């Protein structure tokens, strides 16, 4: 492709692309994001290619591999356009039928359409599906229309128009004012006003400045940055180039965690294509702006997602945070002024420039503007990425979009904000989701993970899980975080294994208080949130573990026993056959008995017990208590 020497050239390319588009040619878009790939998307793509070739339909049908549109629960997703028929859970065996029925005859394959679980009604188009039609999608809407490895797909949908506008009609000050006016706040967790951050970097003295994309999405349960970087890398890149123009930077970095190999690959591809077209490099679109970007892979350290730690990692050093009194806007990467924003923040920039700050600030709540992508995961029917206006209530997100809790279970709470967040109990579900409200409930927005937990998850065990996670991830530079987490883990390990003491709760609170006041970076300061929020909202569960030595959710291994109900056991012997410890006695045809002294509580017997029998039950308290007492005597 020829280099674009001016803004007119870009418009010519866009027109040409539109003119060359064959309106009769139908498109089969197949999601090949990491989620759908994990459900077998690669085989679905091959099946389509084979089928189309077999029937000689290459000229009539174009197969497009796209990014993730969000509804991962129902992968592999396939969209046939026009008119945009949405097929879900597609397996390679379904492909010949789709080609025959839909592409050749113009009909529908009913069983692959979304079916409303209550009314049984089928939905054909994206907008008919409740998971999508309660959302407000600007950032991820295009993912299913774009092949991330083809820059022209992005350009055809109006891509790089915001950059043209900035380069031809706006000064750097205008851009900063526009971002400030929009009210956009950082999407990585802190929620710092983006425009203000840009302004201080722009004002900082120095000729070499850097702009950085933080795609070190370490919060477990969050994957919106992966979906954007993998599925629509140019939207992030366009934001970044605009940022470089605004603050006066000539080089940029995209830091992608290595756990996202596809995001690394697609980002590198995007940079190549942008460079070939002259959207990166010297004299971008003839404007005089020189700017280029390189990709830096993370090497597996949660703490390096912290902005100053990330800059250390970019310098090739150990990714430990730096003290915060030195602002990165004046002294960041290689001690030069640096502007670091999260992937989603950058992706919002072209939208704000194209549609205006007034449009952007009309969406959302008083202090939190625009839309936010949340990853709705855990025990919820429709898992996936959801983009909603700030201020939608948790209940709406979980029930209207998420379709409620599976298997008739009760919702226990919602974990937001990753390991730095807290657990919000069911009674606060009407809370509108924005930065302030979530912080007020002892949790936080974080990068936007919403992990739904039902009655099978133990609040104490979940707190222990996060503390364990952070113990592993604490860099060890400052003492409160390093030692505080270890002590908290010791105590929580004791509680979940039935060794808890009543005074433990007070010690937990004291350690948490100290960590919050004295840790060097946000990792240590917020690490206490999962512990404090569960102590506050679920005190009964802590008490049950400590005093009654039982786990009400039947989740803590050491406090649970498996038991065969003799009157429902059908004597099939499956449990005995599968028990790795040989702890189950009883011949086929007779009732099985679990030898508690040999049982390791792996739960395999519980899983394999046939549904028609359901003879194996979990109990906590009774059997365990008598065993604990025996232990004491010994």
């Amino acid at each position, binding site marked *: 492709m020829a280099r674009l020497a001016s803004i007119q050239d870009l418009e010519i390319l866009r027109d040409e692309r539109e003119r060359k588009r064959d309106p009769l040619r139908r498109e089969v878009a197949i999601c090949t994001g*990491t*989620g759908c*790939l*994990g*459900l077998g998307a690669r085989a679905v793509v091959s099946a389509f290619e084979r089928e189309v070739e077999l029937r000689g339909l290459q000229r009539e049908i174009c197969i497009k591999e796209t990014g993730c549109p969000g509804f*991962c*629960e129902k*992968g592999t997703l396939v969209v046939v356009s026009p008119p945009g028929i949405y097929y879900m859970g597609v397996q390679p065996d379904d492909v010949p039928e789709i080609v025959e029925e839909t592409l050749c005859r113009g009909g529908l394959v009913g069983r692959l359409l979304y079916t409303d679980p209550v009314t049984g009604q089928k939905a054909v188009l994206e907008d008919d599906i409740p998971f999508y039609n309660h959302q407000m999608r600007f950032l991820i809407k295009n993912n299913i229309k774009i092949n991330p490895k083809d820059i022209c797909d992005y350009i055809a949908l109006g891509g790089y128009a915001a950059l043209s506008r900035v380069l031809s009609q706006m000064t750097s000050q205008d851009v900063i004012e526009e971002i400030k006016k929009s009210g956009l706040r950082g999407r990585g967790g802190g929620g710092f006003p983006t425009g203000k951050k840009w302004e201080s970097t722009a004002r900082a003295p120095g000729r070499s400045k850097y702009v950085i994309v933080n795609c070190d*999405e*370490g*919060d*477990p*349960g*969050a*994957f919106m940055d*992966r979906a954007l970087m993998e599925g629509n890398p140019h939207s992030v890149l366009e934001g970044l180039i605009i940022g470089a123009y605004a603050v006066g930077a000539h080089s940029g970095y995209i830091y992608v965690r*290595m*756990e*996202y*190999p596809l995001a690394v690959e697609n980002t590198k591809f995007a940079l190549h294509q942008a460079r070939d077209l002259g959207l990166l490099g010297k004299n971008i679109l003839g404007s005089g702006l020189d700017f280029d970007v390189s990709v*830096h*892979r*993370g*090497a*597996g*350290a*949660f703490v390096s997602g912290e902005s100053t730690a990330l800059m250390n990692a*970019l*310098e*090739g*050093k*150990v*990714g430990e945070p730096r003290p915060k009194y030195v602002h990165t806007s004046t002294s960041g990467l*290689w001690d030069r002024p640096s502007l670091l924003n999260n992937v989603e923040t950058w992706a919002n920039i072209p939208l704000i420039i194209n549609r205006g700050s007034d449009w952007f600030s009309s969406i959302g709540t008083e202090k939190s503007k625009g839309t936010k992508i949340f*990853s*709705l*995961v*855990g*025990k919820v029917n429709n*898992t*996936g990425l959801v983009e909603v206006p700030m201020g939608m209530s948790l209940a709406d997100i979980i029930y209207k979009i998420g379709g409620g809790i599976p298997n008739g279970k009760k919702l226990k709470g919602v*974990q937001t904000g*990753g*390991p730095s967040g807290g657990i919000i109990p069911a009674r606060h579900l009407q809370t509108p989701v924005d930065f302030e409200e979530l912080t007020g409930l002892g949790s936080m927005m974080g990068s936007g*993970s919403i*992990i739904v*937990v039902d009655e099978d*998850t133990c609040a104490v065990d*979940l707190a222990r*899980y*996060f503390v364990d*996670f952070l113990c*592993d*991830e604490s*860099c060890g530079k400052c003492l409160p975080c390093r030692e505080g987490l270890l002590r908290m883990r010791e105590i929580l390990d004791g509680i979940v294994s039935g060794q808890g003491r009543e005074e433990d709760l007070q010690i937990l609170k004291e350690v948490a208080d100290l960590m919050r006041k004295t840790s060097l970076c946000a990792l240590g300061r917020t690490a206490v949130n999962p512990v404090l929020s569960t102590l506050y909202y679920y005190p009964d569960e802590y008490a049950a573990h400590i005093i009654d030595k039982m786990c009400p959710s039947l989740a803590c291994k050491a406090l649970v026993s498996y038991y065969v109900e003799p009157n429902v056991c059908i004597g099939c012997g499956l449990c005995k056959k599968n028990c*790795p410890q040989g702890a189950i006695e009883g011949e086929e045809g007779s009732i099985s008995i679990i030898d508690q002294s040999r049982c390791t509580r*792996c*739960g*395999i017997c519980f*899983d394999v017990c046939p549904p028609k029998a359901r003879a194996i039950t979990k109990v906590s308290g009774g059997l365990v208590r008598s065993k604990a007492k025996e232990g004491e005597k010994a």
Partner: protein
Amino acid sequence: MTDDDKENLDKIIQKYEGKEGFLIQLLLDLQSELHWISQEAIKELSLKLKIPVSRIFRVASFYKAMNLSPVGRHSICVCMGTACQVRGAQRLLDATESKLGIKSGQTTPDHSFTLNRVNCLGCCAIGPVMIVDDDYHGRVDSKKAKLLLGQLASDS
């Protein structure tokens, strides 16, 4: 290190010549060539780059992605992110550990498998997730894990 390994190392060093802050990227490249980073390789790097061994080792030992001991022919990775966790990742890990007879972070004595846990792979909607070599598998329970591991064992 074999002569081939040394040649590879030289090529990788050349790639980063004149660049700033390359150490992590270089080590990642080296690892994808040699599968792990040996003490010998660190010493060799130190000589060629004129960076103290202690600094290279500090970086290599800080980041989880870098293997400082040899790995097995197949790599198994179980995601322990929160979403996978609430959907039973711990039981999946337990089952995999007992099937392979090793703990996470270890390699089987015959060097067939290395088992690792990872904090989040970002496939949270399809958890529990397991990566077998480079392939992602969603909604894996202990039964499916047994099947996947069985396939590998019969292939090799």
